[in-house]
């Protein structure tokens, strides 16, 4: 199992154990993590699963695709740590990953 921690805008942390390969937007929705909508169901069409990846993990993430990069332009508070959670899959390299969720999506 892989551990992923979601920290919401109020600072509440939820550490969740997930299986390899699952989509980190789905994990957030299933575990009632606030601040993640995922309206399009995980196909990078809506940008409502915007998260800020903890800077310590930035280098371990898979590179961002052109589509994700474009869609993130719709997100509020985009910064260099912004990703769409639906484009991140749990993997052994990401065991311990920390994601910060916003107060709400755009």
């Amino acid at each position, binding site marked *: 199992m892989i551990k992923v921690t979601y920290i919401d805008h109020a600072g509440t942390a939820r550490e969740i154990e997930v299986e390899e390969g699952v989509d980190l937007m*789905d994990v957030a929705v299933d575990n009632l993590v606030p601040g993640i909508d995922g309206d*399009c*169901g*995980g*196909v990078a069409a*809506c940008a409502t699963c915007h998260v800020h990846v903890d800077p310590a993990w930035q280098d371990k993430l898979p590179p961002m695709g*052109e589509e994700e990069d*474009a*869609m993130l332009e*719709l997100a509020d508070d985009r910064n260099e740590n912004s990703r769409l959670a639906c484009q991140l899959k749990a993997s052994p390299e990401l065991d311990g990953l920390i994601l910060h969720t916003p107060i709400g999506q755009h």
Partner: protein
Amino acid sequence: MTETAVIVGGGQAGAQAAVSLRQGGFTGRVVLIGDEPVLPYQRPPLSKTYLAGELAKERLFIKPAAFYDKINVERILGKTVSAIDSRQQVISLSSGQCLSYQHLILATGGRVRQLDCPGAGHPRVHYLRTLADVEAMQSEFTAGARMVVIGGGYVGLETAAVAVKHGLNVTLLVARPTPLGRVTSPEVGKFFEDVHRQAGVTLCCNTGVSAIEDDAGDGQVAAVVTDSGYRVLADVVVVGIGLLPNVELAESAGVACDDGITVDEYGRTSVGNIYAAGDCANHPNPIYGRRLRLESVQNAVDQGKTVAATICGKDKPYAQVPWFWSDQYDLKLQTAGINSGYDQALVRGDIASRSFAVFYLREGRLLAVDAINRPAEFVAARNILSKGLSVSAERLQDESIPAKALADQTDPLVTENTAPESAQLSAQSGVQKRSQSNAIKHDRVA
């Protein structure tokens, strides 16, 4: 007394309204009633990854059951609402149960338009709107089977794409001169026509269906008879010819309807304490200065939020740029805005490269974009439209300017007037043409 908000309709709009009521601080009872026996689910994947067998059923659900428990939303699933008594503020279920409400949200969605020709009830004829619809055709959805798809809209094209990839022999019958004729331009329609042909779909435009015959008299094979006299044999027929808004319940309660349930910018119907949201709601859109009825996830989600805000006393008028998406093969079509009434279609990029955008303008102002594998152009258009910016035709087409930067240089004189035409939101036939002939159907939600 505790207030009760009743939501009729367990689709995307209904689910969103329930969530948004709680997020907005509504502390009364929230009851979500759906006529399907399952929790609210996403419809877009039904003709995409779910049909392809690439998405597990549990991933279709918008939220898990525990979520509704946590936010204290009661669910009544698999039950139909038969009547509304708007004076007593009571609804009756077909099971005989009655429920009082202080706030009633109609998120009744739509139902498929049925094929209207002899033999349309053939057992191999299917529609694609619900989870049950997909499950009903799954045993016939096998490699080597002959499939006829009737309808060149999003559902028809997506189904054909999944089926041909799955090894079925697919014939697609399109009534109009090009696919997607109701929602896009002939250029984009022609592009998708070519894409499907190259993928191995037999695609016939300008072709209607005059009858379905039972080929061998055993209900196993349907013969689809076209209006040009061809007879195409099919082990499975999928019909995607549009959606009809579910307005009957509202109408019987005296709620004004005209191509959908008529609502104002706050989602309020003509009857007090009754609201409507999603595919069934005919609403004013200030960006286009007219009424629209849209069949999309975006509209369902945003209107669910709008009615919840109204009920919570945080009125927030609905003023969103409509957007849609469709996945076919390796292509992602993303549409922002409504192109109806355009007088200029500008292609940015090379159609042959399968990565291009078509911007639609009227009198020099952007109305909409169809972006094919061009998410940056889609995002740029959404920003331009939502901010009411004016970007010149030359600029939109200039590929030396990155899509991201398109909105950086605008015409301030025109910018002041954000609506493309008059911003008048009259109820007059304001309904756009294609929504009468049943809407921008895509990523349908209930």
